[in-house]
């Protein structure tokens, strides 16, 4: 069904993202309502004017996103920039940019959709000030070792294989690797291999030429080409069909591939970071994952421990999420009561950090007349599951230790998990502290 122009205008007017288009001289010829709200300019004020005179961004002179789209013939996604509003305030935005072509494939203009990124930038800056590594909270020995490894491999472009249960933060580790490596200013493209049907994955990764299959109306580069000189993150790589695994192996070995429906061999320089949550031994044994591919991908293997094996990180993670939701939901809840924390510490977290984040968000949203998360606001799964796993002695022990956990955790946080300093402040011996932590279920 063709969409008429009136409907198109209505759609563009009603969406929350700012949208504007320019002609081939870069004069604005469309400006939607959301763009007016974000910039403070009315449509009448901007139509017919050069976009650089309206947005006054440094990028207009260095890396205009439409110019990048023109040069690369690709749509640009999630490009970060800063514009000046009408009142002269610098506003961070995230934008997508594409070129508009006529029937002769000649560029006739460009389109940019953008959203106000101010709140996210504030959130990011605020969370970065915390004691995190590239946004990852991890005080435990296991996580500290991973951070050290990431720093050590920052000069290398060798393939990295990240393994960890669902929700452990594999993508965040991949982001941290990219952020610290020498390619950090080059493209970082992510593909979830389980999302695409096997018939489309080849086209997604390697691109296709017009007519290669029914819906291939024009040539399209694949993710490998888009990631040239940068990094490609292949999530859930073991879900890839075996035939594709063979093609992937070839790219890793030779750096070359062909677009679907084309015989021209293309060369790329791409670093591959891959990840999976499946049991590798089983996958290799069952032939789901090619052994040669696995060894090629896992030059640098990283194993992310599940949350239950690094409970030292639970309290700092809770604090981190409370801070995040305080900014996002614009309400101050920065603490959790002892009982709620005790139950969180006893839970096994099969969904790991993602599950913890969801639990905290759930409790956060439910907390309305208090500045502290209370036990009653936790989801039933936590309250019931933890209760089931409690023995009478456990209950007694936890009741007895009450606020001690929170106090100790606060001190551990304060002293960056230096246990000697915590023991000194509590005026107890290091061994006593060790015994107390062990009793409470902490790795010591």
């Amino acid at each position: 069904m063709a969409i008429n122009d009136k409907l198109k205008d209505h759609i563009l007017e009603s969406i929350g993202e700012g949208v504007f288009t320019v002609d081939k001289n870069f004069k604005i010829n469309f400006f939607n309502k959301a763009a007016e709200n974000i910039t403070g300019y009315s449509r009448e004020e901007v139509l017919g004017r050069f976009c650089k005179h309206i947005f006054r961004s440094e990028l207009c002179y260095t890396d205009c996103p439409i110019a990048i789209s023109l040069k690369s013939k690709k749509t640009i996604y999630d490009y970060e920039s800063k514009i000046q509003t009408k009142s002269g305030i610098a506003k961070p935005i995230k934008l997508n940019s594409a070129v508009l072509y006529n029937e002769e494939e000649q560029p006739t203009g460009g389109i940019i959709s953008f959203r106000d990124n101010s709140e996210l930038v504030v959130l990011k800056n605020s969370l970065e000030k915390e004691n995190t590594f590239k946004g990852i909270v991890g005080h435990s020995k296991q996580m500290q070792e991973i951070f050290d490894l990431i720093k050590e491999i920052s000069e290398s472009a060798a393939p990295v294989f990240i393994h960890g249960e669902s929700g452990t933060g594999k993508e965040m580790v991949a982001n941290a690797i990219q952020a610290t490596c020498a390619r950090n200013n080059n493209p970082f493209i992510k593909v979830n291999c389980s999302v695409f049907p096997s018939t489309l994955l080849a086209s997604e990764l390697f691109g296709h030429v017009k007519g290669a299959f029914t819906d291939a109306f024009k040539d399209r580069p694949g993710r490998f080409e888009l990631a040239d000189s940068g990094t490609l993150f292949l999530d859930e790589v073991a879900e890839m069909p075996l035939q594709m695994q063979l093609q992937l192996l070839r790219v890793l070995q030779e750096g070359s591939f062909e677009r679907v429906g084309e015989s021209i061999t293309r060369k790329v320089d791409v670093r591959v970071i891959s990840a999976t949550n499946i049991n590798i031994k089983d996958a290799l044994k069952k032939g789901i994952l090619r052994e040669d591919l696995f060894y090629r991908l896992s030059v640098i293997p990283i194993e992310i421990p599940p949350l239950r094996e690094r409970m030292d990180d639970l309290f700092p993670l809770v604090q981190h999420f409370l801070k995040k939701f305080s900014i996002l939901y614009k309400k101050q809840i920065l603490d959790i009561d002892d009982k709620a924390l005790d139950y969180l510490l006893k839970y096994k977290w099969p969904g790991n950090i993602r599950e913890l984040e969801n639990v905290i968000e759930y409790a956060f949203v439910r907390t309305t007349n208090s500045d502290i998360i209370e036990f009653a606001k936790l989801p039933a799964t936590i309250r019931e599951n933890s209760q089931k796993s409690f023995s009478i002695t456990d209950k007694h022990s936890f009741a007895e230790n009450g606020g001690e956990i929170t106090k100790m955790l606060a001190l551990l946080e304060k002293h960056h998990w230096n246990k000697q300093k915590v023991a000194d402040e509590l005026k107890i011996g290091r061994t006593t502290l060790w015994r107390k932590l062990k009793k409470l279920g902490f790795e010591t």
Partner: protein
Amino acid sequence: MSEMLGNQYFMARKYTDALAELEPCLAEDPQNKSIKRKLVICYTQTGKNQKAMDLFIELVDEDIEFILTADPIKDDCPCNELVENLEKQNLPENGEFYTLSGILWLYCDLQSSIDVFEKALTFDLENKTLQYLIKKLNFYKDQKSLKLSS
């Protein structure tokens, strides 16, 4: 090659890049005055003074008004700033300097352009191109005055 990309480079004051995009576009579309007007400026900013002069005369012959009406805001014409920069550079004030200056001045002000071209002529009294240009610009000025008075 892409006129649109050339336009962006021109907007970003990347004259060498703009030249590389716009030159082949003009070859494809030789009547495109907008490209010519930008290319003249690109030539002056990349040391291709003879090419700048040749294309400038072509455009003067074709449509002086089109050069004169170039607006710093409406057309993003950079000539005000370029004339200012040229004068700041302490270049030797010879025929070439004044010729370049005369080209850029026409994008802003007719009389200033004529004055500067006349200065250029004093360095090379036999320069036929300059003589032709000055004559042409003066003729245009007179025509315009006549129109205004009538």
